[in-house]
């Protein structure tokens, strides 16, 4: 494993590859091709969005975010559960998503954070990004979800599988009534 440092044509090619994957993945969600999106998830996926708390200066590392594997977060789940979420939307009677929301995922600030074992032979990479997700549903209901993502992508043939996705939403009290969309 090496920490990803900038430089070299392999590094740029790998970064480009990761970006293209994230944009394609976001596009599947926005096009509501949910089942195809599920195919991009590794069977041992961890999908985690902590609850964020207002803590005293100096306690952020220790206490600001709830932890994966403990207590209650917004999401701390696996591929099976995400499969259920997709199945639910596709019943046509999941009223929180019926009629379907209009959603655009903006993904930016993409950085390679870690490459294993090397840029020329990357079996697994950790990719940092920012998201801005715009949701509009029915007539007037609009939500903006903004935050940071850290994804672990695993090589899968010519493409990637998402093995781990951590989403840090920049909110404390959730300002939306629901998290009925996928991030």
């Amino acid at each position: 494993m090496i920490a990803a440092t900038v430089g070299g044509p392999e590094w740029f090619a790998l970064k480009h590859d990761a970006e293209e994957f994230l944009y394609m993945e976001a596009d599947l969600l926005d096009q509501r091709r949910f089942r195809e999106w599920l195919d991009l998830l590794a069977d041992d996926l961890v999908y985690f969005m902590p609850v964020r708390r207002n803590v005293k200066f100096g306690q952020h590392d220790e206490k600001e975010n709830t932890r994966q594997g403990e207590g209650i977060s917004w999401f701390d789940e696996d591929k099976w559960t995400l499969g259920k979420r997709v199945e639910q939307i596709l019943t046509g009677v999941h009223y929180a998503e019926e009629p379907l929301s209009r959603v655009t995922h903006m993904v930016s600030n993409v950085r390679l954070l870690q490459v294993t074992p090397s840029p020329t032979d990357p079996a697994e990479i950790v990719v940092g990004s920012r998201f801005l997700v715009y949701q509009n549903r029915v007539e007037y209901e609009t939500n903006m979800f903004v935050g940071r993502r850290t994804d672990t992508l695993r090589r899968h043939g010519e493409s990637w599988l998402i093995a781990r996705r951590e989403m840090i939403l920049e909110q404390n009290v959730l300002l939306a009534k629901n998290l009925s969309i996928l991030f």
Partner: protein
Amino acid sequence: MATILPIGHMIDTGRGTIGRELFVAPEIYRQELEKLFTRTWLFVGHESQIPQPGDFFVSRMGEESVILCRDPQGSVHVFLNSCRHRGMKVCRYESGNTSLFVCPYHSWSYTTDGRLQGVPLYRALYEGQLNRGEWSLIETPKLHIYKGTVWASWDPAAPDFMTYLGDAVDHLDQVLDCRDGRPGGSEVIGIHKWILPTNWKFAAENFLGDTYHNPSHRSVDMIGIGPSARAGQTGRRDNEYNAGQHIWVSFPQGHGVHSVWMPEAFDYQPSYQQYPAVDEYFRHCFHERQKRLGDKARIMPFTGNLFPNTSYHGRQPRGLCVWHPHSPTETEAWRFFLVDADAPAEVKDVLRRFYMRYSGPAGMTEQDDMENWLYATKSSTGTIARRYPFNYQQSIGAFRHNDPVPGDVSVQITEQNARNYYDTYARYLQGDGWDSLLGIGPSVRRAAE
């Protein structure tokens, strides 16, 4: 300003109608804050959130921020989170441990038992004028801890909490007691807080006993998200109560519950089927509970609402939910998730995962509730809409008194709990005395006759 009819005209439970003004009108909302939330007992938190001296948790009562904390002697207090000098919040952290709450504005500081301690430049500016003893943080005159849950009221004349709770206690116990029947012993493993554009009473009423909204959860029932779903079971939870009689019970203090009255002899229903160790744990708890509780073990909980705005889920999932009013059409929901503190780690892990996929804004079941409450509120704000009351005629008169459990008991799906809730609500808005609010006054008896 719109003309608002007297509360008695808007709430006609004999006919089974409730005016939409209750759910949208700013004038009504203002009265709720002044006449109802200043008097009722309100849930503020759980002892497991503040185990040590100096521990605090910032909560809410009605629209207002309060601090729940434990002082150095171990006593629990609830204070208004507002400096006595210019009102700044003295604490803007959600929880923690401290010896002092220091106001960021002019640096007045308060100890965790509420006393004003530090006043900068006291000698030069306040000597002989300011008596510190008179300027403590404002504390709730009433506080009660019941099986770990902390409740408070702003009304010095409020009856003690157990009187206020009344016979609903037998149902709340099914939430707060250990799964094996030992009293208390729960802990909060996490909290969800979110804003929803709805009137707070839609949410309270949903838990109060509105089983009629079951079809709105059809999507989760079709796909199966319960603790045995991976073993092929559909539905959103395990069928623990197949052998029982569903009961909807209302109480004179305004509370309402949906529970199940199990037969004299009933056996454990396999649950958590993809987790054999968890199934085994609950089987063990089930038998222990029957031994400990005897006849009371026949009460199994679904949901309930303790007047006015604390709801619960009894078992699958298990937790308390407070619907904090923000405005007539906006509510801040806080859900406290509960487990037995001494449950094995594997059991807690299965439970928390189930809670998250079921409950709250990301919960597959409750998302559909939020959608309904939002648009029910929105489409009731109109001038024409407000002329037409909501229908509450479901199962009018179909209940028995104190059979098989104390309270008014229906064995069919009913809106009796809601009618009783709004009758109680009306007595608060009329400014009645506590006898009437507890449902024991002569005016209440007259209305019942």
